[in-house]
């Protein structure tokens, strides 16, 4: 055997029998990887009335919904890859787009997919987002009130931060969080999308609205009483205990009774 033969024999990669060794090594590798495997998610872009959305769907539910506003797709995927293994799969995510479309058309029970808050990393985030999921359709709470409910009565700003980093907007209703005084606050996908979502949930809001309309009623979590916007009784109450409802009917469904001072309709 000369040099050329030896080297070119080595280059022909198929000759070395490695199947058995490979099989054993692969098994061992799988075992080693067990605890540190990144969960696999199907991702795709879906069209919705709220614009294009990047959706990531894992085995335990929706992991991420992201409003695609500019050319930030690459950076968001790069971030996603650090904790998850994304696989492009348009078909499995189209259902999410359909649900959102139906929801905006007024089907109140359209958002059926489960939500997986795997991207909410801190305990505080998990707690706040958990509390937020208890806010029903047709109601909104303030950053302050949500903070109080999650055990951070002085943490309105912190709540704003958690909302900003909400991994699954729409399904985890961060659009139902507003400023304590009734102002609308902001929204990651732009205020117009927040308006659109709240409108579909029964709030009468114009396109340029900056605050909740006077038609909303103010409910008190402890007394279970709801009032008109200007009622003196509600002005004395602690704003951290207030929930806003789109109208009296919504407040009644939530188990509240009308105030005897301001006598809201119904």
């Amino acid at each position, binding site marked *: *055997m*000369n*040099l050329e033969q*030896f*080297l*070119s024999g*080595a*280059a022909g*990669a198929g000759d*070395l029998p*490695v199947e058995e*060794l*490979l099989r*054993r*090594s*692969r098994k*061992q*590798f799988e075992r*080693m*990887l067990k605890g*540190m495997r*990144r969960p*696999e998610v199907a*991702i*795709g*872009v*879906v*069209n919705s009335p709220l614009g*294009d959305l990047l959706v990531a769907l894992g085995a335990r539910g929706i992991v991420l919904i992201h409003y*695609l506003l500019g050319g930030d*797709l*690459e950076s968001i*995927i*790069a971030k996603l*890859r*650090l904790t998850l*293994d*994304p*696989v*492009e799969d*348009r078909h499995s995510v189209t259902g999410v787009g359909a649900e959102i479309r139906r929801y905006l058309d007024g089907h109140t029970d359209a958002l059926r997919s489960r939500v997986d808050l795997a991207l909410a990393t801190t305990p505080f985030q998990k707690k706040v987002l958990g509390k937020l999921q208890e806010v029903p359709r047709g109601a909104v709470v303030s950053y302050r009130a949500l903070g109080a409910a999650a055990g951070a009565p002085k943490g309105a700003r912190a709540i704003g931060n958690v909302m900003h980093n909400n991994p699954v907007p729409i399904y985890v209703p961060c659009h139902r969080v507003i400023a304590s005084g009734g102002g609308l606050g902001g929204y990651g996908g732009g205020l117009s999308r927040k308006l659109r979502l709240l409108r579909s949930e029964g709030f009468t809001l114009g396109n340029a609205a900056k605050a909740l309309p006077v038609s909303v009623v103010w409910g008190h979590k402890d007394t279970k009483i709801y009032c008109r916007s200007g009622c003196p009784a509600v002005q004395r109450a602690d704003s951290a205990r207030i929930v806003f409802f789109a109208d009296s009917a919504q407040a009644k469904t939530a188990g509240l009774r009308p105030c005897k001072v301001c006598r809201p309709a119904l």
Partner: protein
Amino acid sequence: MAPAKLLLPLPFEQIMRRHEGEIMRYLLRSSGNRADAADLFQETWLRAYCAYPRLDPGSNVRPWLYTIALNLCRNQARDGARRAAVIIADEEANPAAERIGKTPRAQVENDGYAAVRMRELISALPARQREALQLRYFAGLNYPEIAEVMKCSPQTARANVSQARRKLKSLW
């Protein structure tokens, strides 16, 4: 409106299925024994898995994998040398150099140990020449790929390989 095209890297599973065979062969050939190759294989893929999220989706996976494998081979050679130095401190400084040339060539050919002798010769090459040669012939990488793995220019890679070949030929 058509949804935006996603620039996604291949799933890691697919990368592994595609390249595990060649990585194993490369490690077997350059380490020379199955136990070491199996260990290096685990380590290579584990590191690859951990680093995969930070790999740019557009970049070439193959040189990247070989970079990891080569670094691990270097570590292993270093640690192995350290261990050996502790155990047999009084043996000659470079046992590989000592052995070379001791087996007469005729006998090598007769006994069919050409491959063994070749391995000895290769392991006695200067590190960069040996690495370049192994990447070229054991892994089958082309010069731009070798350059990427060894962080040098393609010309340097080519020069390293050809010097290695010339040295082997003169010793053979």
